[in-house]
């Protein structure tokens, strides 16, 4: 490729010390400025790394009124001190943050692939991208020679499954060294719509293809393209077991090996990650009425048998070392090989499709009424290569389909698309339209919140109905679990800082199935602990899955099985072994609490993040329509009687729905009161100064924002 060098920055290579480089890389693609910034002790003490560094750097870079497409908006990618070790499963994650085009507040994505570890071992604890380039560029980090370069990008093909591979081949030293290059890219849809993602690659040596892992949520791809960036490329060839330079390699190895053996012994009877990855959840969710079907109306349907995990097991190539980073024996990132799409620009061409994972199978399958796994695989493929987030695509398409089924939309309004439930051809055409930037797909690609406003204003639809069925909060589409029967999960979704994603808390089984957290106080404690514990993965560059998607054989006999105490201790041990710093299970939560509250205040600084923003659509809380109520009439009638003390007999369905709704909405508000109190926030959802002081996040700039809302 004929590229012009636009800027170059040389730096000294130095070994990582105990998980840190102590410098971050700033690249302004507008001014072409490239700078190395020091990492202070304060940054490490208060922000740790990963998401903490991202948010800290982004806070300095943006203004109160920065929008997603303001030049000063940043994309930050950071890795954390534990990231890149090859000993403990799930240690290769990058955390991507930006001001989201969907929410206007920081979004954070935890993503696999080799980019993060290679960028870290190239010498950087975080990367900050700012500015807007007038011409398309590629940012290249050469970690072997110590060079950062900005090149022009006259490339015509930017869809990731081809572009990532082209760049790997271009920047690798030789054909036998493709595995040392990783690419961040998106796809053509990111030029036109907001529900987009970034793809971080890793070279699959067995398949000889670029695999793609997604920084999925919140429209990161759209910001990337708005900045005129076509790709980031990193090359690093020196990986060894001690590249992260841990203070105590034997303990790190011993702890990792213990988990390798546990996975080897337990995975086949626990989560089947080796066989089918997270798609193992499909029938479990369906059995418990938790699989979203038809825009989260139902959690179970007989048709869902079509998406049973065995169908995906049959499609995935078995027996491969499918880890998205070296040393991950959980190996959950499965792939469909030689898949031939039946539609679109790559029709008939054999491709390797990453996934489907559970979220994709549910979002692009059952939630839009599709029950043929091959249709799901095709939607998955095009979402990835076009740079579309499968979760937001599923939830946005489900919303559009329900509007179509209700007569709010029709063929005239959709440009001829028949958006009835399960129409895979129409769903795929929406995707192709997003990639081409034409047709109704562009509308769907703006996300549920924009569609709600548009359909009310343009088509006279009832805004209250649209609010009830539009599965978004803060502007972000819900991920793919039914929360109607789990009050704690309703909170888990709506209180999640970036919007309703399940990565802060997944409490449905604890709450609904096992009834382990019956009181508001119990639920509030769970909604404090688990988001804090899970935040820690994002600070360190770790994956959540090896925490509780494999459990020690005796886990059920421990005091707190939901916390998986032995694995918590593993994390304490590997943190100490890498950084040499003190750590215990309480300090771990405190590290998270600082960054979590910082992110909360960051959201407030950008204009969201208080109680008025923690509002679920009623579809996430209870039955919106009579058909939903009647489909589970025994359950709901029983709850009227047992929980509310109302005799349902003689009452119309509408009357019963009204009573149930008032009760559930009141329960939700009581839950929020309890959670805010536990988290150290006011009833309006503002962190108190006392709490910020107690946790050590009382930086002047943080207090200044908080005081605006406490007055």
């Amino acid at each position, binding site marked *: 490729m004929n590229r012009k060098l636009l800027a170059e920055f040389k730096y000294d290579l130095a070994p990582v010390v105990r998980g840190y480089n102590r410098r971050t890389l700033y690249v302004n693609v507008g001014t072409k400025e490239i700078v190395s910034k020091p990492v202070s002790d304060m940054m490490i003490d208060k922000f740790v790394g990963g998401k903490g560094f991202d948010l800290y750097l982004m806070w300095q870079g943006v203004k109160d009124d920065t929008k997603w497409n303001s030049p000063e908006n940043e994309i930050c990618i950071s890795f954390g001190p534990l990231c890149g070790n090859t000993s403990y499963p799930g240690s290769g994650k990058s955390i991507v943050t930006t001001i989201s085009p969907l929410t206007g507040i920081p979004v954070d994505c935890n993503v696999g692939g080799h980019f993060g570890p290679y960028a870290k071992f190239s010498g950087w604890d975080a990367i900050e991208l700012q500015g807007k380039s007038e011409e398309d560029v590629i940012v290249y980090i050469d970690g072997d020679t110590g060079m950062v370069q900005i090149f022009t990008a006259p490339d015509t093909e930017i869809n990731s499954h081809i572009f990532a591979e082209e760049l790997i081949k271009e920047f690798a030293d030789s054909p036998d060294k493709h595995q040392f290059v990783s690419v961040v890219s998106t796809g053509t849809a990111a030029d036109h719509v907001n529900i987009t993602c970034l793809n971080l690659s890793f070279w699959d040596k067995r398949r000889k293809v670029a695999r793609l892992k997604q920084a999925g949520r919140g429209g990161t791809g759209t910001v990337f393209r708005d900045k005129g960036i076509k790709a980031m490329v990193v090359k690093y060839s020196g990986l060894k077991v001690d590249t992260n330079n841990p203070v105590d390699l034997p303990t790190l190895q011993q702890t990792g090996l213990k988990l390798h053996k546990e996975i080897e012994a337990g995975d086949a009877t626990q989560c089947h990650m080796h066989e089918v990855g997270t798609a193992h959840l499909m029938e479990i969710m369906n059995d418990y009425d938790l699989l979203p079907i038809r825009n989260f109306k139902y959690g179970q349907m007989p048709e869902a048998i079509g998406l049973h995990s065995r169908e995906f097991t049959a499609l995935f190539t078995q027996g491969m*070392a499918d880890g998205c980073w070296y040393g991950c024996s959980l190996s959950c990132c499965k792939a469909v090989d030689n898949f031939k799409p039946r539609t679109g620009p790559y029709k008939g061409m054999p491709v390797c499709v990453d996934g489907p994972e559970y979220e994709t199978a549910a979002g692009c399958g059952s939630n839009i009424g599709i029950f043929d796994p091959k249709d799901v695989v095709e939607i998955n493929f095009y979402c990835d290569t076009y740079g579309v987030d499968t979760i937001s695509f599923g939830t946005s398409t489900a919303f559009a389909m329900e509007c179509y089924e209700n007569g709010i939309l029709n063929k005239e309004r959709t440009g001829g698309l028949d958006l009835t439930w399960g129409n895979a051809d129409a769903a795929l055409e929406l995707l192709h339209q997003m990639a081409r930037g034409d047709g109704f797909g562009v509308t769907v690609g703006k996300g549920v919140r924009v569609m709600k406003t548009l359909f009310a204003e343009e088509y006279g639809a009832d805004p209250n109905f649209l609010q009830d069925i539009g599965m978004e909060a803060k502007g972000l589409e819900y991920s793919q679990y039914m929360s109607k029967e789990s009050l704690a999960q309703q909170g888990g979704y709506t209180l999640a800082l970036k919007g309703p994603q399940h990565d802060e808390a997944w409490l449905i089984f604890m709450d609904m199935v096992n009834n382990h957290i019956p009181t508001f106080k119990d639920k509030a404690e769970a909604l404090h602990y688990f988001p804090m514990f899970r935040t820690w993965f994002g600070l360190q560059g770790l994956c959540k899955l090896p925490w509780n998607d494999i459990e020690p054989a005796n886990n059920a006999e421990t005091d707190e099985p939901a916390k998986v105490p032995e694995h918590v201790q593993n994390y304490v041990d590997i943190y100490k072994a890498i950084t040499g710093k003190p750590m215990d299970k309480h300090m771990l939560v405190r590290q998270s609490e600082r960054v979590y509250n910082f992110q909360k205040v960051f959201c407030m600084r950008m204009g969201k993040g208080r109680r008025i923003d923690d509002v679920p659509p009623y579809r996430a809380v209870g039955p919106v329509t009579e058909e939903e109520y009647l489909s589970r009439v025994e359950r709901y009638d029983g709850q009227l009687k047992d929980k509310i003390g109302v005799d349902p007999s003689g009452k119309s369905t509408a009357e019963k729905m009204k009573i149930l709704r008032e009760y559930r909405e009141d329960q939700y508000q009581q839950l929020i009161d309890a959670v805010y109190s536990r988290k150290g926030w006011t009833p309006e959802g503002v962190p108190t100064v006392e709490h910020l002081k107690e946790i050590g996040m009382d930086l002047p700039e943080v207090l200044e924002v908080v005081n605006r809302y406490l007055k």
Partner: protein
Amino acid sequence: MKVLKTYPEKCIACHSCESACSNLYFKEDNVDKSCIVISDGSTPPNMNVCNQCQTCVAACPTLALSVSPQGVVMLNKSLCIGCLMCIGVCPTDSMRTVFGAKNPFKCIACGVCTKSCPTDAIKIVND
């Protein structure tokens, strides 16, 4: 397939094989660094050594483990990133490491130990 075959009923647990192995590959007499391990707590002794089953080869994320034309599983240290997933999957616990080292190690059926065995309890065979 070339493999080191064991005959526990002949083994007198003198540990000469361990010494021969660790001396050859690590230049020290240290059972922790021997590819063959004799446990004399039982009768006959337990003789643990790689049977070249290749389970580890499929698990290796960097293709550092491969099978030689003779059927012996070999480790290419320049490709190994020391993740120890091979040890995690080894069905006979015969892939070994010393914590703190960069790579695991295993029997490559070189036969040096057979020369030290006074009772012919180990033999290189071609199955």
